[in-house]
């Protein structure tokens, strides 16, 4: 009996390291290492002298430069990235490509900021409003898809820009009071503003700023956000893998016809998925702007925020696994923080974007790398077997009629 148990244990361990899941991890790691290497080569080409030092700076997230504050920065970058990634993954599992993530993120940010700065609400209310705004914005392409058969990619991209211009227009007109008087195009910082001195009182954060759980030595931006984000990822994982709802969602992502055959409600599922996806992405926006890393800059010409796009990148690096997204978001958090610590005169900040995009390009080839690993294994094992096998083949040829 104990023998059997051992056997099962050994087998299950073996499976975790050799199964398709493990292959996915290997191929992702492979892409990441290759991407980093190519990035390093580019840095060497740009400046051979500074490359080694700045590359270490980049991949350590600038810890050396920023110290503990840097770690706080990484964590607060990580939270919104993770939310955006999980949101995209959630929709993708159902067969919907949520390219409208940027729009939902924008609206989420809008919701969070209006309730934080204009109405001065508690941060929980602000986060809930961010989720609500994101969900509503995500529901629009879902409804269009289900009832009018409009492709969600097209409507999603349109809504990105509609959302952005709506938010910027709002902030500059009837909501102009939440624009920072000292900095005429950015919103307030999340601290009490002293109108008489024209300065912020950095000892008094607003109630809408995310709490830092009493840990103050990790910098101003450090907050509870990363815990919320990880909980969201776990929540998404459980929802997808353990519930009947997830069972239906994934089934309709894999095979739409079979869900219809089995009597599942495809339309309802589609709308629900998008709403959840949008809510998670909106939450990410809330976590980003309420931790005070950046303020929203409401100029008309401003581009769509970068985080949701990185969310799509994370989704692909994580190969559509919410738990994988935790690590992918960590990587992107490290890289984007590290990029700000490199020698700015030699390497542009965009070097991290460059590396992540190389990784994504390579992970676009995961189908190949996924095959690559079993293939190598097979080649290796066959070499051993081939000597034993050869006489068999000869025999077989002779035996033919």
């Amino acid at each position: 009996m104990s023998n059997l148990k051992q056997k099962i244990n050994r087998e299950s361990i073996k499976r975790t390291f050799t199964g398709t899941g493990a292959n996915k991890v290997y191929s992702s790691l492979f892409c990441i290492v290759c991407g980093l290497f190519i990035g390093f080569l580019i840095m060497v080409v740009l400046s051979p002298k500074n490359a080694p030092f700045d590359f270490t700076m980049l991949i350590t997230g600038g810890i050396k430069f920023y110290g503990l504050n840097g770690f706080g920065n990484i964590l607060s970058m990580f939270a919104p990235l993770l939310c955006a990634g999980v949101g995209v993954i959630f929709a993708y599992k159902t067969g919907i490509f949520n390219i409208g993530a940027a729009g939902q993120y924008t609206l989420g940010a809008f919701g969070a900021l209006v309730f934080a700065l204009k109405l001065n609400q508690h941060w929980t209310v602000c986060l809930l409003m961010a989720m609500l705004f994101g969900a509503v914005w995500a529901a629009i392409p879902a409804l269009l898809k289900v009832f009018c058969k409009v492709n969600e990619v097209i409507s999603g991209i349109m809504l990105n820009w509609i959302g952005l211009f709506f938010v910027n227009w709002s902030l500059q007109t009837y909501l102009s009071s939440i624009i920072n008087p000292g900095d005429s195009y950015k919103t307030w910082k999340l601290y009490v503003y002293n109108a008489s001195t024209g300065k912020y009182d950095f000892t008094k954060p607003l109630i809408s700023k995310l709490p830092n759980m009493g840990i103050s030595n990790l910098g101003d931006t450090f907050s509870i956000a990363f815990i919320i984000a990880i909980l969201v990822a776990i929540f998404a994982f459980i929802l997808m893998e353990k519930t009947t709802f997830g069972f239906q969602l994934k089934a309709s992502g894999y095979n739409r016809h079979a869900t219809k055959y089995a009597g599942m409600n495809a339309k309802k599922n589609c709308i629900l998925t998008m709403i959840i996806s949008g809510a998670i992405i909106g939450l990410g926006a809330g976590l980003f702007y309420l931790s005070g890393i950046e303020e929203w800059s409401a100029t008309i010409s401003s581009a769509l925020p970068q985080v949701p796009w990185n969310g799509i990148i994370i989704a692909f690096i994580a190969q559509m696994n919410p738990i994988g997204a935790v690590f992918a978001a960590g990587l992107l958090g490290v890289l984007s923080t590290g990029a700000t610590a490199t020698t700015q005169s030699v390497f542009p900040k965009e070097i991290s974007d460059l590396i992540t995009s190389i990784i994504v390009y390579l992970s676009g080839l995961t189908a190949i790398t996924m095959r690559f690993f079993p293939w190598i294994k097979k080649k290796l094992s066959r070499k051993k077997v081939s000597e034993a096998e050869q006489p068999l083949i000869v025999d077989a040829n002779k035996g033919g009629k």
Partner: protein
Amino acid sequence: MANVNKNTYAVEMLGITKRFGNICANKNVNLRIKKGEIHALLGENGAGKSTIMSILFGLYSPDEGKIKINGKEVEIKDPNDANKLKIGMVHQHFKLVECYTLLENIILGKETPSVHFLQDAMEKDDREINRLNILSGYINIQKRMEQFTKLIHDSKTEVDIRYNLINTMHLTPEQADFVLAMPIGDLKSSTISNNFDKEIDRLRVKVQAKVDKKDSRFTKLKRKILFNCAKALDWFNKLVCNVDKNKVAMEITEISRKYGLSVDLNCKVEDATVGMQQRTEILKMLYRDNDILIFDEPTAVLTPQEIEGLLNVMRNLKREGKTIIFITHKLNEIMAVADRVTVLRRGESIDTVDIKNTNVAKLSTMMVGHNVNIIHNNSKKKPGDTILKVRGLTMFDKVKQKNSITDVNFNIREGEIVTIAGIDGNGQRELIEAITGLEKTKLGSIKFKNKLLKDGDVKTRNALGMSHIPEDRHKHGLVLEYDLKQNLVLRDFKNKKFSRYGFIRKGNLIKNANELIKKHDIRSSQGDTSTARSMSGGNQQKLIIAREIERKPDLLVAVQPTRGVDIGAISNINSKLLKEKERGAAILLVSFELDEVFGLSDRILVMHDGELVGEFDPKKVTRKELGLYMSGAKRNYKFVEEAR
């Protein structure tokens, strides 16, 4: 002597092995086919018949082994190589351009002009050569289009164009006038000619590369390409060369008369019957002077009468010295027509025997590996109450812009197996989709257990106890990425047994899976965790049947439940259906195999062109009679509403 011996074989395939991933489709297969014989290739579905023939036709390349044609070792890389070696194939699904006539389909794609065409042409003047080239397969179409485009560009006036058309393009004055009658703006605009040029170029490459690939993923693309190509060629045809098809037509008529292949050459494919389409495919091979003809399951789509005709054609072909390879799993056809037969089982060639020295029983034992008992419906159970009522059901096909089924009326009672017989594509699929709620109906009503069913409401049907074994198990029946235990609860996952508070009860799923695996003998590599994709077709089918039967349905809709399943499993599945009947379930069966229709049904309904045309008791009707109804030659169906 050895030399002579070698030459008696038209095809030798020695030690062929072909692997797809971990699956070995052909293992050391040896196949020797004598010149001028009809050689049957017998085996269950999945025995590797189609694979070995695809290797011979150049669709796959073998991992090991060699192929000899007429004693010479050859390498067949693609269907073009096969064509050069005079190997032709009639595929199970025909490869014809729908909007073209049969004649045009026969000519189409013949890239090299046949020898006597050239010889003929040599004797005539240049102009004739050019026309004949076009005629015999549009050989230099690309080159000519380049010429033509350039010419149109260079010419400044209409007179110029006319002059050039006659002198450079070798057109007759009438043809040149025809070209000029086209709006001159169109001709001059570079976009049209350039696009056309590119289109032709692209299509030629694609068509050549893909026209014969059997991969179903390409089918749609292929159809589109063929359609575009045909359209383009048609356009070109009208524009520059008024092709005189009469000569080719006469030639083909001669061939068809010689072998008894009657076709109406001017009929369009979409209007032609399936039998006629098949004869067109055969003519296509003969027109290309192919000597080795492969027939891949040719009788699957034919009525009994048409099958008899086809077997006669095969005999005629043999008499003319053609070598025929006949793939099938129907033993009586082999006994009727073949000279020798090679039996394949699980990818291996078991034996090659003379038909004279064998019989049906021996062959079937060889094919399956053990004795087969054929299931018959001997049940004495009397049918109970009416459970399904279909009244005036009409459906509309948006693509074809006509009714796919028209005014269908019938009843099914408890404990009764009703079979819809008919040739594939006569509305059976649409009828089933309507009953199972997958498609919308136009008119009529479906009542199940006296409840009116709404279109597209599968949920209610589930709840009321309707099960459905779908025709296409990959499209409808399974989520291939899901594993065995998940696929087993695809319909019932919301059942209390399998989920609680919205959470899946994984333990119960595993328990359920292991029970059903044991009960229904579902084999897979990793038990309940093996993905449906990794399972063989037969076991996938077992999985679906296990799922649908275990729900204890009151109505079981089974569409070709034994398709692509080996013989051992067929009897297993059929006995399960009978057991369901004994339990009191009503069964609506759709089948194209007459053996199954006669073996299982209590009642046969024949469908032709979307209408029910006959109702029979299987004990009181002959196959021949049924065939006449299936082909639409006879019809006699009156639905009488039962008295209350």
